[in-house]
């Protein structure tokens, strides 16, 4: 499994594909791929969900949380997914 980055953290609000704001560190702007800190709190993503199965090397797998199964990807945020169940 890929190492967590800041985009996996609930304290982080993305600005763009490279950086965002860390609310746990005085709203400072940080690069997504820089080292995470002890305040790291996982955000709901498909890869953290029990419904996410059979992921391939590109982190694309199956979501069986809905009536009709379909593919999904691990990095998809699931904060507002009605079927999200934390692993």
């Amino acid at each position, binding site marked *: 499994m*890929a190492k967590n*980055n800041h*985009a996996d953290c609930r304290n982080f*609000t*993305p*600005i*763009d*594909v*490279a*950086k965002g*704001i860390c*609310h746990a560190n005085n*709203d400072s*702007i940080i*690069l*997504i*791929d*820089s080292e995470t800190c002890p305040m790291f709190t996982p955000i709901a993503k498909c890869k953290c969900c029990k419904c996410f199965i059979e992921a391939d090397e*590109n*982190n*694309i797998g199956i979501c069986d949380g*809905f*009536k*009709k199964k*379909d*593919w*999904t*990807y*691990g*990095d*998809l*945020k699931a*904060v*507002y*997914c009605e079927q999200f169940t934390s692993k």
Partner: protein
Amino acid sequence: MARKLVDVLEEQGMSLNLQAGGEAPKEMVDREVKEGATERAAKLKDIYLQTLSSVTCEFPYWYNRVFQANEGDIMEVRRGRALKAGFEHLTPSIYPGELLVGAKTQYYRGSFPMPWLSEGFFMAKEDELYQAALASGSASADQVSAYGAGGGNVTESFGNVVSIAGKYGIRKDEVRVLTKLAREWVGKSVDDVGHRYEQMVPEYPIKEAVMRSLICMFDSGYTLPQGREVINYFYPLQYGYDGLIKMCEEGIAETAGRPDGDGIIGMSRLYFYEAVKLVLEGIQTWHLHYADEAKRLAATEKNAKQKKEYEEIAEIMEHIAHKQPRNFREALQMIYMVHMASVNEDAISGMSPGRIGQVLWPWFEQDMEAGRITEAEVLELLECYRVKMTCIDCFASMGVVGGVLSGNTFNNVCLGGLTRDGQPAANRLEMLLLEAGMTCQTTQPTLSVLYDDKLPEEFLLKAVECEKSGTGYPAWMNNRGGIEFIMKNYGPEGMNLEDARAFSIGGCLETSPGIWKELELNGKKYWIPGGAGQPTSVGVHFISNPKVLEMVLTNGYDRRIDLQVLPPHNKTFKTYEELYEQFLEYYDIVIDCLVTTNNIQHDVWRKHNMSLVNSFLKPDCLAKGQHIGNMGYRYNATYNIEDTGTINMVNSLYNIKKLVFEDKKYTLEELTDALINNFGFKNADEIGSFSLEAQEKRDDDDGRYDQIHADCLRSFKYGNDIPEVDGILAEFEDWYCGCGDKYESLYAKPFYVCQMSVSTHAPQGAATLASADGRLSGTTFADASMSAYPGTDRNGAYALFESATCWDHSRSQNSQMNLKLHPNAVKGIEGSKKLLDLTRSYMRKGGFHIQFNIVDSKVLKDAQKHPNNYRDLLVRVAGFTQYWVEIGKPIQDEVVARTEYEGV
């Protein structure tokens, strides 16, 4: 050392003077008016300036998943469910200091692809993108700091970011998601289905060749099917989303199973209401998620002021998710979110807010009277609005976003004009919109003044002051001319004078029909304007006038791509009139094949990808129970024919007439030979500059074309009040402005013409041989439609105006004139008055549009050399203001080369 054009001209006793009306000082002169934004807006703008244009698959993932899951359902409802899912699953992001929240995506400046419109690009680039994703991990993420030149464009891949076409960045983990999504739409997208059917048009082979040769710039049905129109905020502002859902429920109850006399689409009303209800529910949930996010942030926020602001955001978003806004801030937040909802339903540029100073007036007036808000607070909110609007990005094909739009999204706010009963419509809130445009200089929204002699001097001078700050806005549009056009074009659909006064500008300068709606707030009634017409700049765009003329000279054969594009005419022209007749014949062939094929694309769009968000916003969809595709909008005759390079064509026709047919100094074959051989010069892309002055002779040139080139350059040119040249423009306009009448859009309405270049004068110039006006191969055309070719307007601005107004501008949707002024030319209050007089003079002569770049050309040249020092330098291109560092070199060169007026 290679001989440059300036050397050749010098030998001929000529100069290429790009200054008029005096000489600029040697030192660089900065713009005169400078103001700063509030600390809050300045910080938010600063984040924007550091932000990369970013793409995410979140919305398209959910759209695609739900759309596929509902296979078999009615298309409107299927699309309604898909859009609902997209909105409901968007992750909200709120940034510290924001007073207005919301965005297209989770990113500050985000956008997303819509493979259901067109997926071909991703399929073609699948392997390339994947290889970039594999390779990118080896580079350092710190490289992000290197992106100065290019502004927010992700010009190359770095770290875990992959560049898409040198513009957008995507996280490498999402590359496979993007291509997987695209694959699901192969053969099903609007692009693919439309292409399948457009090939059945008998003239399709010509259309295919016309597109390849770049006689025409792009298709419209799957690229930017909506936009260049004016949004309408009335319904949510009046009824709130709860009220609109109730309307849909009532509509369902009234129409289910009842055609009510319409045997074709009467039954469709049920599906429309159901689909809109679904989308409205999705939009409500999207608002409520912002409220949730604000509460979450408030819960952990230690700073008391920021905590309170998050709590206020939560309360506002919870309220406007359901009800009519209660105050100015809520109303502004609502229209901003409506706008985001609109631009998230389709690939859209130019969805213009319109006359929001008049739309929001009821809340402003009542808040001010009640002492609930101060002007300083309103100004701060408007500055925040500017930053938020500037963050809008549009994800469309590179040819469209880069080549046509220069990355701009054309959200035009109009000021001034007249009220429903013919009184000046400018108000105090519009003064603050101008002030915010000066204090918080950003590209969006661009501003336009609907100039009318009735408007107060104080307002007009405020607009001039804004202009002098160097933003390139406001542009000036002729209110009376616009009303005349609206009356002529929409009269057959029932337009009256009162509603014609509600018109506004969609996109950069597309005159768009509107209507007044009566809004009630706290028992007081107001008439507010809003858009009521279909998208414009859909249909045929953009036809390169010099390229059509080139086809006449080359017997329909394009030497750049070695292709017989148009049927050979095989004629020997004995007179200029015969040649001109052939030019019009070719023009008609081009229009005809583009009309029929684009009609099919748009027909597929309306069947598979119809608007639901804009359909519930625009009158009279909710009343009729019909979406845009079923002509639910009040006005539907909006399809147009756009052109570019008019002035190069005019100057070229004049030279052909004079040098070949009247003076008989050269034969047409000799002239054509000189053009094919680019007068002995290299092609512009060989030397990497696209302005005339920088062009270089070929090493093997023997000078045989020097004389004919000199004659072509030194002849009379448009822009100097010379009747012989202007007569050619007038004759062309007389034909062109009527040419749309014989074509029919898919809505069975006639076409009309639209005249502006946006940025097409660069790529279409690049695809055109040298022209008979002396322009060299591959160089950019004259900008706009009424601007003179750089350096050729030598008799002052007023002579240029005489030339430009030799025809009736109200017969066209617009015309476009750019003037570049040195800051010294309009210095001080006297300079302001001169600028207003200049503008007024053009308007009174019947010119439709004028806009100004008030900038020292030396600043632009320095910015080309040192882009990192000019991240926030704004310039006016052709109907829009853009960050200098985000526009391509051909357009940069063209803006540098424009004639600089040292005095007016």
